[in-house]
């Protein structure tokens, strides 16, 4: 009797895990929905939005990539070397690679692409004479950090022809980017192996609430999840992926405005902000409160920047002017943060008026605005340099010449020294996933690896029928 019971129990447990294959299936179309607008797939414009960057990474590849430890790994370049001064680098291109428009990857096509993306980098690319597979990059000054800069999405190698922009990545654009619905198809000749998916259907500019409904009804596979709703969604048992904290939420002062021209005013407001309550209440403890430009997991020194509210925020005997704080009007979380800052400020004797604006295309018109900036790299130096550039911070901090963690920390201190930017928190990115999505992997900085994703059988995964 006992043996029979255990036999039944063992059988039940086994059946409970039925049809749970581990090996990937080919086929099917992944349906992605996002509230972001995607206007271009050119890697040069990837920095305009997280979704745009994620999609560009599906189509375009860089010469090198960074692994989880920030070590450079071969991508379109299979080998590289530099001279002793780090001013001249030589890259050997991967043989046999073609762009999705049929053009072969050569030193000339790579140089044409790098000439555009590297225009502001201070270096020049050229093809090695009589060698169509070698690219030379030369700069006036030493470039010890060149590899991590070349791993930035905007340096993705693209062939810009008459029919559009073509890449070498695992997916290719199906038709033109028009409207709010478009698709990518698998690159059958991809050098690292055709992706498991046949295609990716992308719907943009869709409200998050509608995305959640589509996810629940089985009409979408990948959706946005507002980060302040992530905890609630997890408690409801919804499947989602939450990245490391990769998006800086900061207060950016318009230092040309008379009201905030005096750095003592900016410091007074910065000192009054209660980051802990923003993190614990408004962000539902997702991510981390931060007073630094880089998150703790990237720099290891974020804890040295105090997030505590400071007393005596207002300079005694000095009348503070009323300030206007802009936030993205369509974003309820940003609105809540702006209102909380206004409350903190009022308690410190500073009048702050939150005003919603369309901040997607320009900076705010007020004295300060809330800004969100995604981390572009997991390399601390490159990430800090990119953040400084995006936030309009003066580049005399020594970021470029920093060689040690301590030097980079000092540079970060200098960037924040005039309080023209006040970090508030680092946010993760949350992604809702349908039950049929398998092998969902995100890079440390929230990159999607859709070439590895496959769809569970019973969905649209196929067998030999559509084999290339």
């Amino acid at each position: 009797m006992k043996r029979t019971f255990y036999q039944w129990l063992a059988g039940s447990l086994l059946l409970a895990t039925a049809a749970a294959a581990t090996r990937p299936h080919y086929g099917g179309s992944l349906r992605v929905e996002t509230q972001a607008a995607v206007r271009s797939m050119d890697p040069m414009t990837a920095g305009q939005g997280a979704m745009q960057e994620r999609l560009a990474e599906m189509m375009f590849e860089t010469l090198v990539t960074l692994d989880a430890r920030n070590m450079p790994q071969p991508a379109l370049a299979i080998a590289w070397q530099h001279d002793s001064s780090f001013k001249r680098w030589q890259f050997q291109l991967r043989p046999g690679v073609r762009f999705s428009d049929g053009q072969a990857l050569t030193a000339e096509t790579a140089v044409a692409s790098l000439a555009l993306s590297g225009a502001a980098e201070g270096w020049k690319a050229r093809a090695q004479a009589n060698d169509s597979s070698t690219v030379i990059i030369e700069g006036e000054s030493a470039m010890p950090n060149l590899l991590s800069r070349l791993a930035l999405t905007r340096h993705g190698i693209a062939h810009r022809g008459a029919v559009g922009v073509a890449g070498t990545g695992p997916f290719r654009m199906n038709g033109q980017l028009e409207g709010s619905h478009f698709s990518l198809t698998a690159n059958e000749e991809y050098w690292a192996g055709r992706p498991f998916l046949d295609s990716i259907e992308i719907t943009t500019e869709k409200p998050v609430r509608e995305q959640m409904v589509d996810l629940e009804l089985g009409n979408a596979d990948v959706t946005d999840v507002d980060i302040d709703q992530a905890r609630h969604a997890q408690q409801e048992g919804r499947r989602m992926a939450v990245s490391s904290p990769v998006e800086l939420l900061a207060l950016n002062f318009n230092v040309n405005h008379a009201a905030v021209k005096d750095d003592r005013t900016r410091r007074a407001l910065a000192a009054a902000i209660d980051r802990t309550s923003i993190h614990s209440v408004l962000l539902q403890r997702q991510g981390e409160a931060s007073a630094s430009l880089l998150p703790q997991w990237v720099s290891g020194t974020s804890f040295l920047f105090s997030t505590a509210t400071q007393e005596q925020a207002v300079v005694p005997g000095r009348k503070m002017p009323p300030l206007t704080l802009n936030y993205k009007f369509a974003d309820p979380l940003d609105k809540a943060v702006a209102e909380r800052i206004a409350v903190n400020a009022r308690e410190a004797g500073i009048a702050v008026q939150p005003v919603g604006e369309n901040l997607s295309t320009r900076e705010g018109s007020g004295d300060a605005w809330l800004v969100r900036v995604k981390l572009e790299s997991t390399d601390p130096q490159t990430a800090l340099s990119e953040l400084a550039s995006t936030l309009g911070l003066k580049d005399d901090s020594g970021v470029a010449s920093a060689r040690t963690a301590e030097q980079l920390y000092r540079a970060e201190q200098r960037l924040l020294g005039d309080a023209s930017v006040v970090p508030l928190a680092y946010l993760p990115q949350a992604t809702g996933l349908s039950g049929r999505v398998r092998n969902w992997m995100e890079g440390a900085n929230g990159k999607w690896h859709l070439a590895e994703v496959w769809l569970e059988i019973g969905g649209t995964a196929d067998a030999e029928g559509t084999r290339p």
Partner: protein
Amino acid sequence: MPRNRVAFLLPYFLLLLFIATGDDRAATQTDQTGWAVPARELVGAILARASAPPAVSLQVRNLSSLSPAEAEEIKRTLRSQFSAAGTQIVKAEQAVTEIQITLSENTSGYLWVAEAGRGDTHQIAMVRVPRAETSSMPRVTSTISLRKTQVWSQAANPLLDVALLKSDALLVLDSSTVSLYREKQSHWELEQSQPIGQSKPWPRDLRGRLAVHEHKFEAYLPGRKCSGSAEPGVQMECRESDDPWPIAAGDEKLRAFFGARNFFTGALAGTSSRGNEAPFFSAAANGESVWFTGIDGAMHGRGGARTSVSAGSDIAGVKSDCGNGFQLLVSGAGDWTRSDSIRAQELVNGEWLAAGAPVEFPGPVLALWTTNEENAATVVIRNLSNEIYEAYVLSVACR
């Protein structure tokens, strides 16, 4: 246990002993030099910046992934370094300088940060500490137990299969080469490596397997086959080929055609084939009985009869002296984002039942092939903690 089986397993046990000894030596080395060197560097730097105070208070906090035990050991090491530098550690109220050391971490490794000062004056010093790789080897306890022995690891190319040769040699198949390693002073030394060559991109989730007969071998990859000899050195010829792959490496009676992606087409060849099957990822044979893990996620017998066993996509049959003499090894459920396990199943009264505890792996199982002698299986995984491919030999032991 038959003598030939003991002879076959002996190298694995010796290798396990070597690995265990090597791990201990590495751990001792870490204790002696791993923490002491950065601790000395950090203490020296912060004392220099704080003008070498004679007495300091010391607080150490851990913001990294170091375990509490490791953090405590580092704290002891730091204290001894202060003492060695002639600085006394006292209570905060007696200290000339207060020192707080934070064991932090970033994407490149550990970062230890020392802050020294009193009042508003603070000095900071930092040292980078490389992260060490660790791996665990859990034990299983049951009447039947699975024993795993790591035989190989590599970071570069995707590892597809390995085969231990009787001449203390290891044949390694990866996505670009077949390599022969010879055991020299308890280490595998590369003797020779031959390129496989490829005329078109490999499919994603590339699979491949080695079939070894004495010193001769065949390497099967999608659309390509290499035949060669490992003695003396690797001599190999590769060609485009759709030849069927062996189901069990030592069994010529049943072979299966592999498709252009990551599964077998279902077309079978050999004297034991009895018609074709549905497409499958993996198969195991015991005499005339064959089981397939279909691409539909379920396990079938011949003719598509579903069985009660279903887990991962990979299975392998192993013959042993335990139980009824044949165990089916099955990989666990989940995808490549998770750690994996392999468990043994036994057929009892027509029903597959779990036999013993599963053996855990720190990453997904990418390959599970029965060895040539059919008394063990080769397992290839990708370790999720370091992205390194690891090969194990998995055998069944009676308890």
